[in-house]
Structure formats: structure tokens, C-alpha cells
């Protein structure tokens, strides 16, 4: 992974090589697998991070849904870095990785991410094509079978919030959904990392209804962002997606929750608009450091509430 840096935005080629390198160099802690391929045929790598052992509960975390949100994949890489760096040294991370596994998907929308590096930095969607239109791509976070295309999504292929011709129409969302369906018995929490707005959201977004454990999710979000704020004072808001940000159907967090994963959150990382999607690399470190505190708090809670 020549040229890879945790404090830089890395190209997909570098990230792909990095997934190989970290799993090869840390065989007792990290294993790499493929959960599918993208529309353009690229392999979707998943890293399983945790001390090797049978029947451990797991947390699934994905990054890189929306191509232009570059801080998101940077965080998934940073998480793996911290796992490697502090396992066996830092008591909390060591306990977490001894008792939990983290499934980390560094970039879901690889085709779109590459497109932002090579053609259009502002691209958001996948790069899939379909008959009947010259417009490209589906919004992966409108493509899940959770109130699919009911609200806050568009049925027009040219729109940025296009929900796709059908739920799970995208190879990328289908691959993620299939993996989670196949591992539901072990996955206790689902986290999806986006930007920007500095928010921690939980279901539902596809409806104003609340989850049966919304009081628990609310308290957990409140405590997690309190942890986050201790490092650099970064202020987050939190709440159910529909009322905290806006109603939007087809989201992966709602879908995961309805699959039975009772701890399901969307993180919208820095910032609040000063740079937006163009967050400078100099903010990768502070953003990831503070987000680690929230994720570790969440993981400890999940561990204590099986």
C-alpha cells in the first residue's frame, strides 16, 4: 500500500492494497474477505477485526456509501489503524476486540468513489446504468427495502436521490444486505458512516414512527456524542432521522433495524458546512479521534447489553 496514509485521502487502489496489507500483517486480528462485486466489477472487501474466536457477537460498520463523502472511508481506515495500534496496549480496545468482532466495509460505493477521484469530485451515487435512460447511478442510501421510495427519494434516474428501479437493485446494496442477512445471528449493531452535519441518527427515517427501543437509542446516542465532544468539543445533534434531519426512505440503518439489529445508527461526521464534503485532510485526525470515542462507547454498551 505504497503511499497510504491514515491522515490523507487515499485512492481506491491504495485502499485496496491497504486492506491486503493490514490483513496479511495482522493475521491474528484481521481477516479480509469479499462480499461481492460492484457494478463495474470491482471486489468489495470486508475486514473482520477482532481476536480470532468462535461465536463472537459482532458490529457491522460501513463507510463510503456516498462517493463524495471522503471523510467516511478515511474513518473506517482510521478505525482499523486504532484496532491494530492499541490492541494489547489499551484496555478498552483490547477487551472489545477480545469479546467482539467488527465487520468493517471500508468503501461500499467503490465505483462512485473512483469517479470522484478521476472525473467528478462532486459525484454521489453509484455508477450503474439501466435501460431507458442515459442518466447514471442510484443513491445507495435510498435503495434498501425499508419503506423503499416512499418519501424523500426520487423515482427519476437523473436525480441525486434516485431510489433505483427496485429495492436492492444495486449490486453493492445487494451484497451488503446479503452479508448481513447471512450473519444476523451474530451482528448486534449496525453503523453507517456518512458526512456532513455532525449528527448521530437512529431509525426511523422512512417514517415519523419511533422504534420500540427509541428511549434506549436516544440515551445511547446522547451518551456517545457526549463522549465524542470530550476530545475537541465538537458538538453533534442526535435523534431519529425523520425528525432530526428529514424523512428519507430506503436507508440502510432503517433496513438493518427492521432485520432485527436493535442498535442501528447513522453518523454524519464533520463538519457543519464550512467545508462540507471538501473537509481538509488536516481535519482527518481530529475527526477520526473524536469519532473513535463514540464508536468505542457504543461498542462497550452493545457488549454489556447482549
Amino acid at each position: 500500500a505504497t503511499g497510504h496514509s491514515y491522515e490523507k485521502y487515499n485512492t481506491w487502489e491504495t485502499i485496496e492494497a491497504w486492506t491486503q496489507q493490514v490483513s496479511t500483517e495482522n493475521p491474528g486480528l484481521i481477516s479480509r474477505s469479499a462480499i461481492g462485486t460492484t457494478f463495474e466489477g470491482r471486489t468489495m472487501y470486508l475486514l473482520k477485526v477482532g481476536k480470532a474466536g468462535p461465536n463472537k457477537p459482532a458490529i457491522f460498520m460501513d463507510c463510503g456509501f456516498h462517493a463524495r463523502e471522503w471523510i467516511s472511508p478515511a474513518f473506517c481506515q482510521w478505525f482499523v489503524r486504532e484496532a491494530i495500534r492499541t490492541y494489547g496496549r489499551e484496555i478498552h480496545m483490547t477487551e472489545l476486540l477480545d469479546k467482539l468482532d467488527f465487520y468493517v466495509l471500508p468503501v461500499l460505493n467503490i465505483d462512485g468513489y473512483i469517479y470522484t477521484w478521476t472525473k467528478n469530485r462532486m459525484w454521489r451515487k453509484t455508477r450503474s446504468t439501466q435501460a431507458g435512460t442515459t442518466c447514471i447511478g442510484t443513491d445507495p442510501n435510498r435503495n434498501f427495502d425499508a419503506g423503499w421510495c416512499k418519501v424523500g427519494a426520487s423515482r427519476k434516474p437523473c436525480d441525486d436521490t434516485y431510489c433505483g428501479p427496485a429495492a436492492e437493485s444495486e449490486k453493492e446494496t445487494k451484497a451488503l444486505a446479503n452479508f448481513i442477512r447471512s450473519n444476523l445471528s451474530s451482528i448486534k449493531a449496525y453503523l453507517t458512516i456518512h458526512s456532513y452535519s455532525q449528527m448521530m441518527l437512529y431509525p426511523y427515517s422512512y417514517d415519523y414512527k419511533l422504534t420500540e427501543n427509541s428511549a434506549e437509542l436516544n440515551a445511547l446516542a446522547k451518551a456517545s456524542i457526549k463522549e465524542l465532544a470530550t476530545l475537541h468539543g465538537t458538538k453533534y445533534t442526535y435523534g431519529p432521522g425523520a425528525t432530526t434531519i428529514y424523512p428519507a426512505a430506503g436507508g440502510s440503518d432503517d433496513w438493518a433495524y427492521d432485520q432485527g439489529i436493535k442498535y442501528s445508527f447513522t453518523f454524519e461526521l464533520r463538519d457543519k458546512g464550512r467545508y462540507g464534503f471538501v473537509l481538509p485532510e488536516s481535519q482527518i485526525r481530529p475527526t477520526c479521534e473524536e469519532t473513535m470515542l463514540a464508536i468505542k462507547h457504543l461498542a462497550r454498551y452493545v457488549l454489556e447489553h447482549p
Partner: protein
Amino acid sequence: HSGEHFEGESVFRVNVEDENQVSLLHKLAGTTEIDFWKPDSVAQIKPQSTVDFRVKAEDVFTVEDFLERNKLQYEVLINNLRLAFEGQFDSHVR
């Protein structure tokens, strides 16, 4: 970066007070190519919120004129997106 250069493109933030101003933004989106940053689309704009969106260089003055004529309160978050892109690669590692 062999693709679009975004020279002179700007990102606006508009404070939306009421339904009338929501309608005005729908009208603007109907006549000008707008890339909504937050919320994701014009359909999700609601009163008492802020809206961030990007416009092409050739539309910046038209958009500013529209916002001022309709007394929409706004600020320019990013003046020239190309410079912001260059500025994002500021890691000391580089």
C-alpha cells in the same frame, strides 16, 4: 484530476423561514441546475432550516440576484470550489 474543474463554482447556505421560502427554492431549482448538499434534494427542504447547495460559475450571479430579490437570507460557504478542492489536500504527511 482529469475531470470537471469547478472553477468559480460556489456553495450557498440559505436560511429557510417559511413555506413561501420553501416554494421559492423549488422555483429556483426548477430554473437553475442546483446540486443540493444538505438536504439531499429540494423535496426535503422544510421551514426553519438551512439549505446548502452548489451552483455552477455561470449561475452564481443569477442565483444571488434571485436570493436578494426574494429577500432570502443567505451566505456563501465556499466562493470558489476549485480552490477548496486544492485546499483539501493539506495533510502535513504530503
